[in-house]
C-alpha cells in the first residue's frame, strides 16, 4: 500500500512541479485579463459615449471632410500578449485545433482598448468626429529566439480627426 503511494508520489510529484508555473500563470492571466476587460467595458460605458454615433466614427472618408474646419492625424498603438501559462496550454490545444479562447480574449481586449484610446486622443485634441479609421495588426517579435514562449501582438489604429 505504502509502496503504491510512493510510486504515485514519484509520478505525480514531478508532474505537478512542472505544471505549477504554467497553471499559476494561466490562472493569474485569466483573472487579470478579465479584470482589465471589465474595467475597459465600464470606461466605455461612462466616457466613450460621445463618439458612439454612427456618423461620428467611421471607416469611410466621407463628404463630411469637405465641410470641416480643421483636422488632425490621430494614431495610437498598443502591444498585448497572452500569459506564458496560456501560451503553454494553447500549444496543447493547437494539437487538436479549434477555438483558442485565451487569444480571443486578449485580442478582443487589445482592439477595443486601442479604439477607446483613439477616441480619448480625439477628445483631447478637440475633434468632433473621427473619419477614415484604419486598424492594423502585427506580430512584434522582440524575443531573441524564435521558439520563445513569448509573443506579443501590436494593434495600431490611425484616423483623421475632424473639427466641423
Amino acid at each position, binding site marked *: 500500500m505504502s509502496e503504491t503511494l510512493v510510486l504515485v508520489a514519484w509520478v505525480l510529484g514531478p508532474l505537478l512541479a512542472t505544471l505549477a508555473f504554467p497553471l499559476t*500563470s494561466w490562472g*493569474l*492571466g485569466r483573472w*487579470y*485579463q478579465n479584470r*482589465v476587460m471589465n474595467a475597459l467595458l465600464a470606461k466605455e460605458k461612462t466616457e466613450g459615449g460621445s463618439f458612439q454615433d454612427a456618423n461620428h466614427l467611421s471607416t469611410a*472618408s466621407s463628404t463630411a*471632410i*469637405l465641410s*470641416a*474646419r*480643421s*483636422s*488632425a*492625424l490621430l*494614431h*495610437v*498603438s*498598443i*502591444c*498585448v*500578449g*497572452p*500569459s*506564458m*501559462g*496560456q501560451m503553454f496550454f494553447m500549444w496543447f490545444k493547437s494539437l487538436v485545433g479549434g477555438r483558442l479562447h*485565451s487569444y480571443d480574449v*486578449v485580442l478582443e*481586449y*487589445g482592439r477595443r*482598448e486601442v479604439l477607446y484610446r483613439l477616441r*480619448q*486622443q480625439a477628445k*483631447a*485634441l*478637440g*475633434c468632433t468626429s473621427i*473619419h*477614415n479609421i*484604419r486598424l*492594423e495588426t*502585427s*506580430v*512584434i*517579435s*522582440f*524575443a*531573441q*529566439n524564435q521558439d520563445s514562449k*513569448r509573443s*506579443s501582438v*501590436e494593434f*495600431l489604429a*490611425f*484616423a*483623421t*480627426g*475632424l*473639427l466641423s
Partner: protein
Amino acid sequence: MNHGERFINEPTVLNTMQPEAVSLFMSNVETIPGKTITRSLGLVTGSTVRAKHLGKDIFAGLKNIVGGELKAYTELLNESRNEALQRMMLQAHGMGANGIVNVRFATSSVAAGASELFCYGTAVFVE
C-alpha cells in the same frame, strides 16, 4: 498622448534639434480638411528599426506572467513611430511641402529582436 500639447486647429509641430520649428498639416484622407491643395510634391517616407531595451525586456518578461498589455513595448513602439513620422515630416519639409496627405503606417519584424516601423504619405502644398 503622443502628440503632447497640441490643438486641432494647429499643424503638427516637428520636434527636432532644428533651430526653426517645422509644422505640417497631416491627414490620412485624400485632402487636408479646411485647406486647398495647390501642389502635389510626391512620395515621402520615414522609417526606423528598433530593438528592445534589456531593462524593459525584463519587465515585459515579468508582465508576461499575467499577459495583457505590455506597457514597455507599447511605449517603445510609440516612441519609434513618432521618430519615423518625424523623419517623414523632415523629408517633406525639405521638399518645400507644408502638408502630408494619405499617411499610412506599416509594421514588420525584420529580424529576431527588432521591428521596423514605417510610414509614408504624399507631400503636398496647401493654402
